């Protein structure tokens, strides 16, 4: 009798090993139509239905924020950045806290980047956007200067008490491309707080939360090499590991056009009013998606010494790839990078 019980107990103890063994599984979904890009959500949940619930909340939040931060369209019944731009030099516009939050972050970004990231550069960026779309010539210097004269962060008036934003000078307009997607990802990630482990790839900016529970210690994020190899194959130039951080990249290959055999990309240096020319690519890593987004642009524009100081001040890690092909990185980046020391011989 004891023996039978013993065998029964032993079998019962062992059976779960052969069972499905999966409490949570990994799911993925993607959607477009927001922030001019595709968003992929990958996460671990108890079921597809469970995962879809979170993914839907994330999608809804992104859609809502896309409308609020849109500078090209207005939407009935809401005041968004298009509305704010339309009222430049006319009157303050009442907006929801998310818009206030975005612009406050943008203003902080201007301050700590020494002006490298400036959301009031709307008129300059619009000019480049138009010439890039037309594709045959560069915007003339005097047109760029005129457009630049309409920028000025001091004329961005945020009244938190009243919940209004006012562009004090006529002709001013905001372009939040350097910060909106990251800030939106930060807010959207909060919608899925019930999922302990997931990532959001918002058009190339990757935000990771928690750790993958299936044995991998951390998420692995590849950094795409902008150049294809001689066979036309895409590969990563680096892989970084980490959890609870966002990897944001800026590069000279994302949007560009060619004039006279030279390429002109979309990240404009507010000082020269021309595309920044120091680096081909920068990857910025930070726990906050909004900051990672701002920093990837700031570090792409600033010279390396100022960039290293800024990264340290913000608690960010970063990789710079110069137009000379040379890699530079913060010390902490080297700790999470698979390729850095191999590429550079511990540079």
């Amino acid at each position, binding site marked *: 009798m004891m023996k039978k019980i013993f065998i029964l107990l032993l079998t019962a103890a062992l059976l779960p090993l052969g069972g499905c063994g999966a409490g949570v599984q990994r799911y993925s979904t*993607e959607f477009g139509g927001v922030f001019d890009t595709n968003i992929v959500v990958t996460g671990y949940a108890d079921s597809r239905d469970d995962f879809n619930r979170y993914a839907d909340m994330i999608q809804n939040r992104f859609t809502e924020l896309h409308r609020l931060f849109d500078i090209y369209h207005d939407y009935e019944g809401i005041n968004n950045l298009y509305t704010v731009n339309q009222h430049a030099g006319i009157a303050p516009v009442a907006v929801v806290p998310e818009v206030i939050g975005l612009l406050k972050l943008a203003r902080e970004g201007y301050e700590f980047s020494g002006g490298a990231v400036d959301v009031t550069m709307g008129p300059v960026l619009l000019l480049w956007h138009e010439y890039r779309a037309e594709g045959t010539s560069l915007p003339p210097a005097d047109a760029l200067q005129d457009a630049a004269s309409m920028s000025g962060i001091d004329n961005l008036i945020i009244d938190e008490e009243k919940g209004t934003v006012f562009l004090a000078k006529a002709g001013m307009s905001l372009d939040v491309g350097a910060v909106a997607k990251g800030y939106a990802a930060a807010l959207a990630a909060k919608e899925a707080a019930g999922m302990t482990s997931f990532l959001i*790839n918002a058009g190339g900016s*990757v935000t990771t939360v928690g750790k993958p529970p299936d044995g991998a210690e951390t998420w692995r*994020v*590849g950094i795409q090499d902008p150049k*294809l190899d001689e066979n036309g*194959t895409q590969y990563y130039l680096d892989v970084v590991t980490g959890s609870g951080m966002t990897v944001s990249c800026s590069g000279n290959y994302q949007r560009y056009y060619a004039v006279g055999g030279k390429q002109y990309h979309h990240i404009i240096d507010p000082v020269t009013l021309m595309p920044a020319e120091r680096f081909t690519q920068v990857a910025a890593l930070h726990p906050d998606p909004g900051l990672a987004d701002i920093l990837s642009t700031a570090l792409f524009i600033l010279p390396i010494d100022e960039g290293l100081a800024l990264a340290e001040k913000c608690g960010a890690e970063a990789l710079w790839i110069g137009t000379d092909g040379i890699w530079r990185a913060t010390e902490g980046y080297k700790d999470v990078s698979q390729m850095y020391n191999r590429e550079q011989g511990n540079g």
Partner: protein
Amino acid sequence: MDKRALFYRRDVWLLTGFLLLTLLSFLLFRLSGQPANTAQIMLDGQIVRIVSLEKDGEFALEQNPHIRFSVRDGAIAFISSDCPDQLCVHSGYLSQPGQMAACLPRHVSLSVNGAGGVDAVAN
């Protein structure tokens, strides 16, 4: 048989049998999630085609024949599209799980499935 023994030889075989069965089902489960690489093509957020990367060839997307793909040496790429920017075509051949490319104006995306590789690619 010695009736006072806790285990008869027959019981040992029975137990061993159970243990082996357990081990086998465990292994089968672990191994079943590792197929050869495939890629998936999505249109408007829905998977419309799953492609094996084992066989070379070219094909057009049924829903939009202007968009064509090529599979070559275990990798897949957009090779033509009717979009203005051609960013999809410039994304090159993808071979690693986690790699993706997209034709945003046409709402088409391409990604490589499978374990290993990276969880996402930043660009």
